[in-house]
């Protein structure tokens, strides 16, 4: 389910079936010209990714809006903030939490975060409309859904 009015209507009636939270972690940084293009592209890919996963597992997984943070921000502080998000989310019957990100620096903080970090090796650049990129994403989505399912 997605963070939309329509899905939330369904969620309220079926929340006991939805026990998994998917949180995309998206870095953001305007200041540096050299990385703008790459960052934006990765953000696009991540968006595609999570929507594909959501489509596969719509009935049990809730995709919430991306958690945005400044790329070079102190991760300790971000972990604390995410914790606050989760504490609130856990007022609902949530059992599994997955973070999905291209940012490898989260791996170091995996243990401090409640839930599982799915770090995906990113696609550096390319054309989202090209067949190769699409099939690559398709394969990875397949594997990630499999992985999430293994926790159920």
């Amino acid at each position, binding site marked *: *389910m997605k963070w939309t009015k329509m899905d939330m209507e*369904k969620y309220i009636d*079926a929340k006991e*079936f*939805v026990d998994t939270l998917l949180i995309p972690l998206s870095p953001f940084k305007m200041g540096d010209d050299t990385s703008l293009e790459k960052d934006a592209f990765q953000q696009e890919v991540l968006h595609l990714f999570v929507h594909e996963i959501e*489509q*596969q*597992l*719509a*009935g*049990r*997984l809730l995709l919430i809006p991306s958690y945005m943070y400044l790329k070079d921000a102190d991760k300790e502080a971000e972990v604390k903030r995410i914790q606050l998000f989760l504490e609130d989310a856990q007022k609902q019957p949530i059992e599994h939490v997955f973070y999905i990100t291209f940012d490898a620096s989260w791996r170091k903080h995996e243990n401090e975060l409640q839930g599982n970090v799915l770090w995906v090796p990113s696609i550096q650049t390319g054309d989202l409309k090209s067949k190769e990129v699409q099939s690559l994403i398709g394969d990875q989505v397949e594997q990630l859904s499999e992985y999430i*399912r293994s926790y*159920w």
Partner: protein
Amino acid sequence: MSEKKQQVSRRQFLNYTLTGVGGFMAAGMLVPMLRMAVDPVLQTSEEGDLKSVDLSVDDITNEPQLVEWKIDQVDGWYESEVTKSAWVFKDDNGDIIAHSPVCKHLGCNVTWEGSEKYPNEYFCPCHDGRYYKDGTNVPGTPPLAPLDEFDQKVENGMLYLGKAKPREEA
């Protein structure tokens, strides 16, 4: 000369002008009303279109296989390309059946023989929903309705699929 000038009298001129302007105004009001009355006729059918799924009828077996195809979907403000998928097979009578993979419980994607425990059934990984091969939901599992079926046609030996339609309660 003076007779010719009198051919259109002031009264007539005003009459013509008023009728003309009045006519325009009436038309301006009536045309949208008429359009509204026949609106369903004017609407282009976007969903009714059947699209080729690039699958030859000869390649369809008794075993459901997953086919994917792309449609242009106009969704409010966005026009986007959306990938659709279906499980396609021939039933015992040789008729082609195309099931929607969307679980009728909460909308996950079901897989044919998705669980080793339940051969010959569709399986939904989210809440263990199951469907028989004909799409009927297995009683006692979460789904309460059979899988949707796609509108379909065969042209030049190729399969075309349209919109998924709910089936009557079995």
